[in-house]
């Protein structure tokens, strides 16, 4: 009896190993979490200085339309209205998602429901390739093909929201498509069988059963695409024109949060208002990506409850 108790009390090598593994993963987790929080804290604390140190009012910042950091208005207020960039960011995100979603869904339906063989053999590799292309390449193509094309058709410079939308459309298409494909593939076969067995056509089955059963996942795919579009800097900066103006047409130069950030980050002095407002823009970006993240999680949870 005593011996048995001793036996169980003694730590076996396996248990030691287990503890070791647990310790390592705990340390790694703490490390990652603390990095994330330091970034959040760092960016937000700088971003807030615009309001605390420099006394810019939140309304002037979020709703103001004049963006000339370093200059002041007649009333002596600094001209740091971020509304043009906020509007630009939302516009290109929404437009590119609106454009990409039907194509992504169509491609995903083709690859999973209509012709899985061709899909696997040809489309899948193409899409994987597209995902991997660096954004500067997309931007470069946009600059040399799309911008001149728009210039020819609509006149003006060709730079603007339309060019950015088209570039982003191509960029988020593969992301959204491949996520949509995964979602559709995850719809159990027996839903399709049940639908066919009730005399549904293939199209009815796709439309009324498969897409519907997959809708939370498809929504997530679209939001992932939007998150990518919202956060994309380089490619957008190359084609949008980077004029901090509220876009009054799709083909006049505009700007986004990211494009203004990448343009100006290196040209300002630390601690000045010019620098701190950029951090404010970065803070908005950060919170938006947090928002997209929470949204997808929330949809996932709601979908799982169904």
């Amino acid at each position, binding site marked *: 009896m005593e011996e048995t108790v001793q036996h169980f009390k003694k730590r076996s090598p396996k248990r030691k190993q287990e503890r070791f593994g647990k310790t390592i993963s705990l340390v790694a987790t703490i490390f990652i979490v603390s990095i994330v929080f330091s970034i959040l804290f760092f960016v937000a604390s700088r971003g807030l200085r615009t309001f605390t140190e420099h006394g810019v009012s939140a309304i002037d910042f979020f709703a103001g339309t004049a963006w000339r950091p370093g200059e002041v208005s007649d009333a002596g207020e600094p001209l740091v209205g971020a509304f043009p960039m906020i509007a630009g960011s939302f516009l290109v995100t929404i437009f590119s998602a609106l454009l990409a979603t039907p194509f992504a869904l169509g491609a995903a339906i083709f690859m999973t429901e209509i012709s899985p063989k061709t899909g696997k053999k040809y489309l899948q590799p193409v899409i994987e390739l597209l995902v991997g292309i660096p954004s500067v390449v997309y931007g470069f193509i946009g600059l040399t093909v799309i911008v001149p094309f728009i210039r020819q058709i609509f006149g003006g410079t060709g730079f603007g929201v339309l060019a950015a939308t088209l570039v982003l459309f191509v960029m988020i298409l593969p992301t959204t498509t491949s996520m949509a494909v995964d979602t559709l593939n995850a719809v*159990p076969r*027996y*839903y399709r*069988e*049940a*639908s*066919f*067995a*009730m*005399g*549904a*056509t293939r199209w*009815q089955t796709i439309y*009324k*059963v498969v897409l*519907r*059963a997959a809708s939370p996942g498809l929504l997530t795919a679209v939001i992932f695409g939007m998150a990518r579009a919202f956060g994309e800097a380089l490619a957008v900066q190359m084609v949008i024109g980077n004029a901090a103006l509220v876009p009054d047409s799709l083909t006049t130069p505009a700007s986004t949060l990211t494009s203004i950030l990448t343009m100006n980050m290196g040209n300002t002095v630390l601690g000045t208002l010019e620098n701190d407002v950029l951090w404010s823009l970065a803070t908005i970006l950060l919170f938006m990506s947090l928002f997209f993240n929470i949204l997808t999680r929330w949809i996932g949870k709601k979908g799982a409850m*169904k």
Partner: protein
Amino acid sequence: MNEQIVSTENVHLYYGDFEALKGISMEFYDNQITALIGPSGCGKSTYLRLINRMNDLIPGVKITGKVNYDGKNVYDEGTDTVELRKKIGMVFQQPNPFPFSIYENVAYGLKIAGMKDKNKIDEIVERSLRKAAIWNEVKDKLDENALALSGGQQQRVCIARVLAIEPDVILLDEPTSALDPISSGKIERMLEELKKEYTIIIVTHNMQQASRISDRTAFFLDGNLIEVDDTRKIFTNPEKKETEDYISGRFG
């Protein structure tokens, strides 16, 4: 005498090179339950799915012979499988309701057939759920997700879903094998009620079930139909030695 509704003539089915059905001829009659029995892998499901052309969905399937329904061979060129499957409904082994509400599950077949009249749909949904002996259990939660029901309830919703499109023939592939005895009993009693209006073909591994509810029983072995006869005859005095061995539990 019951009217002959479905019959097969010398049907062979190949999955690629593998011959899963080796020349099967038999008839199915109105207002009767025909049970298909036989050891696992003998081709019962394959044979059942042949009748409403569900095997068409599997790549590499080749079929010869005839399946007659409504005076025509369902494998004729011009057959509309969509129409065919509305007339020959199917219930699967695993309850497979759509992840929608109970109401939408039962109304599905009506909606895809283009029915718009809400009152009529409501009426058919209720009637179908009543026939499937589940109305009382779900009438207060028609808008709840069907996946939240128990397995036995889900299966009855699936049966109601098929009844709603008013088929002539109902194919059931081991509909109670995933269910507890009480749920199975409910479904058995329901089937006995339903046979007054339909032709029912049921695959089952449960000998008692076959002998309890079916009028005729067909015994399959290795892709062959060994024997088909009145259920009482099959279970008391079969013609073939293999049948006797199987029902007395000597193999399979």
